[in-house]
């Protein structure tokens, strides 16, 4: 019963997105897509979150923030990179201030491509992330933590 995947809470962070993906993330909450049916809550608080959902590539300003938010989340936790910028840096990859995808800073578990990523694919990505979450929890239990 106490599987994390039954109640994954989500923290959404915009690293340097153009807001296209962010709008799509919010779309997931609307009645049409309704991610709450999976028990997902979009909490704004890293202390209570299990999934870190990041849009946009990492730039020099947001790098430390992403790291800090990640460190404030309790284990088990997964990271979902939403949108092509978050996956690889996208069209901004060569910009002087962009470090690249999220995985240049913290380990990413699921990549959701698209520009902007469609709500369906975001939900799909999050549901995939839930499997990873369960695996991590099982691994944690094995370690006896």
């Amino acid at each position, binding site marked *: *019963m*106490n*599987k*994390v995947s*039954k*109640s994954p809470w989500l923290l959404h962070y915009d690293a340097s997105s153009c807001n296209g993906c962010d709008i799509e993330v919010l779309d997931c*909450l609307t*009645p049409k897509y*309704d991610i*709450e*049916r*999976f*028990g997902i*809550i*979009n*909490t*704004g*608080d890293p*202390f*209570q979150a*299990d999934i870190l959902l990041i849009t946009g590539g990492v730039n020099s300003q947001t790098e430390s923030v992403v790291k800090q938010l990640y460190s*404030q989340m*309790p*284990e*088990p936790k997964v990271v979902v990179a939403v949108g092509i910028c978050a996956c690889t840096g996208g069209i901004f990859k060569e910009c002087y201030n962009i470090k690249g995808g999220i995985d240049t800073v913290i380990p990413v578990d699921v990549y959701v491509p698209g520009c902007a990523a469609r709500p369906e694919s975001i939900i799909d990505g999050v549901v995939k992330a839930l499997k990873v979450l369960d695996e991590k*929890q099982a691994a*944690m239990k094995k370690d006896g*933590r």
Partner: protein
Amino acid sequence: MRQVIFVFAYLILAPFVGALLDGIDRIISARMQRRKGPSILQPFYDLGKLFSKEMIAVNNVQLLLNLSYLVILMIAGCMLFAGADLLMVLFILSTADMFLIMAASSDSSPFANMGASREMLQMMAYEPLTLLVAVGFYLTTGSFQVSDFITREYSAVIWMPGLLFGFMFTTAIKFRKSPFDLSTSHHAHQEMVKGITTEMSGTTLAIMNIAEYYEMVLLLGIFFLFFVNSTWWSWIVAFVICAVIFFMETLWDNVSARVKWKTLLYSCWVVTLVAGGVNILILMLIM
């Protein structure tokens, strides 16, 4: 004997009842917004998950204060269900809340501190009415003992409809329902992150949630007292009306937006004065 059963039933069942009500509340809310909503057991899943998470904390006292909040709330609830003094129950309830405020302000977190300040303000807003409710019961039954309320010939609500209305109005604060969910809310996206619970994670948050369930049942218990009398069928009626009241709180939650603190304070105090005060005045004159 009956008291002991009630107390144990409260201690054991209250979190389940509370969580179930929370689940129902979330489904009803979802349906009101034309969504499917989570499973009815979602609060249980949430609790299970929270307990299984890694323990991280911002300081060493928060867990202790949250646990104290839970235990003192349980004591308050036990006293209510054991038929003890209602006024005392209310006083202890506010003492319990004090521990929650301490837990939130035990670190210098800006969001949690702001939440704690708002929680204090909310207490200031609802406190007068709860005292008046106790006074109302005293005037109708001649005692503050809960056990005396339930053996009356007629339901108390006949004499105190104004107080019932006022209590329904201010209980939105305690249920953390919109428009009065200033200090923290069940919904995502707040102006203050998660308010009073911002720095709570995992087990600490789970304890806080369980305490809220205990509190929810306690408050419904007080609503129950408005309707119950010495007849057996009044218990059923009271159950049904409590369910209706809970539904109305959910409805109100969904149709109203969060208000500013000034509106909260003034509206609660005015309602207390008009609905509660007038009711008490009339009771004092006729009793």
